[in-house]
């Protein structure tokens, strides 16, 4: 009986090894799938060449979907913000951050923004019963980040009306279209729509940057090391061909770097639905 169990384990391990030859990668659905795919493809091709594997994109529509797939062992690698990672890590310890991507400003941190169309019409005193567009519950700049900003402005989501729209650009365009009074989204993305009149009203505290997270149940430590080394050692010339959010370099990251997030009270109390 013990021998049978042993052979089954060996066979399963072999099956995992075989499946790991094609790595499944899930990008963060921050922007449109076309944009996401076009930004990630050069980097993934580089990694595939370095590792000698094939890397497929598994596009998910929400962070929750990614987390579910990750837990279900359908994803080997994922591009996650700090909130989804912390959330994932709480229930799935096999998630391991590999590197964090620097932002355009050069550091491995980013901020969330509260974006409005008419700055004068959205002052702190009036932040009440306003319609606010959010990305996703598990998005860092969704409920989590926006709540922090509103707290800074002396308000909260609860005294306003908020709704999850999904992607950051949807949030930005929703505000531009005038469908919402404000929107919570990643600051860098909000600034991309400035030409449409979108204004960053306020920013959150810096958050750990977006990280590449590996499923150590499916990816060996050796391969994770290779991925990290490959991304750290990539030449500048090559890196400039990558997507706009990915070409600024990476730095190593460890799970403890997310402790600052874990200590925030809202982390565990994020509503999954909007309030209107």
């Amino acid at each position, binding site marked *: 009986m013990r021998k049978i169990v042993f052979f089954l384990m060996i066979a399963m391990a072999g099956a995992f090894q075989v499946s790991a030859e094609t790595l499944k990668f899930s990008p963060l659905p921050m922007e449109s799938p076309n944009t996401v795919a076009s930004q990630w493809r050069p980097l993934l091709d580089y990694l595939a060449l370095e590792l000698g594997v094939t890397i497929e994109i598994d596009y998910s529509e929400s962070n929750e979907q990614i987390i579910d797939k990750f837990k279900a062992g359908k994803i080997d690698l994922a591009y996650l913000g700090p909130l989804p990672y912390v959330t994932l890590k709480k229930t799935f310890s096999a998630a391991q951050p590999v590197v964090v991507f620097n932002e355009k400003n050069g550091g491995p941190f980013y901020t969330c923004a509260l974006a409005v*169309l008419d700055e004068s019409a959205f002052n702190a005193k009036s932040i009440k019963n306003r319609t606010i567009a959010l990305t996703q519950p598990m998005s860092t700049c969704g409920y989590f980040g926006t709540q922090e900003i509103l707290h800074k402005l002396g308000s909260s989501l609860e005294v306003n009306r908020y709704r999850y729209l999904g992607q950051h650009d949807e949030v930005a365009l929703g505000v531009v279209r005038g469908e919402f009074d404000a929107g919570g989204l990643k600051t860098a993305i909000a600034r991309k729509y400035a030409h449409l*009149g*979108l204004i960053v009203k306020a920013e959150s505290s810096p958050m750990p940057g977006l990280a590449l997270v590996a499923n150590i149940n499916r990816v060996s430590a050796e391969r994770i090391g290779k991925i990290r080394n490959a991304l750290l050692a990539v030449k500048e010339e090559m890196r400039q061909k990558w997507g706009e959010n990915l070409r600024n370099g990476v730095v190593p990251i460890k799970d403890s770097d997310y402790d600052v997030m874990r200590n925030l009270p809202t982390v565990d109390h994020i509503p999954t639905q909007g309030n209107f």
Partner: protein
Amino acid sequence: MRLACAMFFFGIWLLSLALIYRHGEGVQKERLNDNGHVLSVIYQASVNMYALSTEILIKDVIQKNEVIETIANGVLGKDEKARGALYRMLAPAYEHLKQQGVNQLHFHTADGYSYLRFHAPDKFGDPLFDTRPTIRLANTQKRSTFGFEVGKVASGFRYVYPLFRGKQHLGSVETGVTFRSISQSMAKVAPDREYLLILRKDVVNRSLFPEQRPLYGVSPLHDSFLLEDPELKLPSSPQPLSERVQALNARLREDPRVQNGLPAGKPFSLGINNDDSYWAVSFMPVNNPFGENLAYIVSYTQAPFLADLRRELWWTLFLASLALWSLFLITLRLLNSHVKLLEEKQRLVVITDIITDGICLMDLQGKIIETNPAFSKILGYSRDEIIGEIGHNFFHYHEDKTFFQDQGCPILSAIKNGRIYSGEELFKTKEGRIITVEVTCNPLSKETDLNGALVAFRDVTVRNNNQNALEKANHAMAMAIEQANFEREKTLSILETMADGISIQDPELRVIYQNAAHRNRLGEHLGELCYQAYQKRPDVCPDCHLVQSFADGQVHIRETTASPAGELRHFQIVSTPLFDSSGKLIAGIESVRDITERIRAEEILRHKTSELEQANFELEAFNYSLSHDLRSHLARITLAGESLQELEGDSLGERSKYSLETILGSCQKMEDLIATMLTLAHISRQELELQDINLSILAEDICSEFIKAEPERMLNIKISPEIHVNGDTHMIRVALQNLLGNACKYTRGKENALISVSASRQDGRMVVAIADNGAGFDMAEAEKLFRPFHRLSSSRKFPGFGIGLATVERIIKRHGGEIWAEAVPGEGATFYFTLPG
């Protein structure tokens, strides 16, 4: 021939198969092209549908004043918030468009920069003219344009309209439809088809934002073409192709028609069999407004008609092969018959060609259809100039009518009536010669219909001429025979009257004729062998003269004796061979003459001659003795006279002195005469000592003595060198001294005395000639020239005894030679003599 036929049919078969196959391929190609045309129509309908949606948008929404004003404020830089305002204004319409499948809505400035992308609002301000021809056209030519383009974000079918505020050109607006939308529309029209869009790699690479390029992968059909979103992970990606079509693509990638067709940018369709299913695959090029090929829409549809066409093609090929090879077998049989016919015809041609009779084939009107070589040879007309002509007009000559008149012509009549005609006619050759011919005319019929005649003729002119000549020859021969008989009778009469006996024997020595004299002398022996009849011998006579004549063809004469009547008689028998005109020996004539009387007369003559020779010999001996005796007495008289002259000369009177000198002179002459006579006698008696003599040297020696003796004379002497004779040197010297001495003597008085000695060889002998230009003599006295002591009248004025030439003649004759002379009085003489060379 059969091999050539087989090869010809094989070639025709192959050609037919090729043509049928080509036709089948053509039909298939036509059907496939129809498939391509259907694709084109479907595509056009789909594209037009979206164009209609865009036009509605333009008219109903965008061309509203407030929208145009907002655009104007934005693109003209009057209002920074106009872009956002425009986005807000048109967002609902854009949503509506997206629901209809129109994915892109894009505004551009008049100078070709992106103003607002509804499908990518974060991207703006980039130049478009270089990569977007439709936008350039719309803004530069200010007209709406349509076309497929590979944009900076994605490829699509673009509808671009210029925007105006009044007459002010503000820029342009476009809508874009992805292939997914187009293919969905097309699928609604033709649900049995699947579609694929492939893009030219070079166009994609030059157009896209760099970050968009990774969304494209190598197309499954060709390396030079890309496939948008090959993993079909994007929401805008079209429906994935079925597994059967994907398997088909693997085949098409190896297909040279695809590999060569796609880069050409032309529409094409092809049929392909995969997994027992026939598919029609059409490739429709998609071009930008400038005609540049950017992409292909590939349509896949199952095509059972291809299987039907294929089956129909194989059946056609089979039936065509069957029909053709059946035709081949029939042709082969016909060919065999034709070959036999040709061989038969060839044999006939050979026969007619070698026949010396002229042959011509005529139709019922007498027109010549064919001739043989002998025809042209006899009549002189070549085949080309006579074929198709009425033969009668050309060569039939009616002796008693005009040449061209055909009325009553027996040949034409026979031809027209289908009768056989045979007879002699006159034909006229091309040169105008009239010849007699034997003509045979045989009618020719095809089945029961008379359709011409075969006319054969033979030139009998020569034969007739020969016949005439033969008759003349016979007549002449009869005359000749008559003449010969006459001559024969005459000859026989002569022979019969001849005193000589004549007997004629054939080559077997059988007596075939005897004349009367012979019969009288030896009896009649006709038919008997001559040696048995005449010599009573059983065998041929050993020395038979007639046999010798038969052997050498010469006349043989023999004398013999016989005693036919107890009296010895002498006969001369002359045997003569007799030949016919061809030289063949046919007989021998034996002539027998009785020469008994002649023999007796000759016997008496020989006896008399002998007596005379004896008397001459004795006379010469006497003469010699007498000369010697006279010479001794004369010597005493001369000695006594000279003593008297020496002792008493001075005392003698004049008369005595004269008498004494006369005595001494006469003695001297007597001495000379006696010496000459002794020489003559000596010559006659002396034995000959023959040896080779150089006559030239001997003559020069003798002449030099004469010149010394008469130095005052101008003698011109020419002696040919190296004249050699065989003789007695002493005697020949005496002879030359006499002849040359005479030449010197008889040229005295000539101012230019010429003497020559020459020789020539004739019949093995040397003929020596000694010539001078002296006094000569009359040839009438030539016979007296060599008589001793006889002097010619012309020589009497010169000294001499007349014994010299007699001596010369005797010397020459003793050498077996001859001597003779030729002369002209006053001009000179030439003496010839012969000696053994």
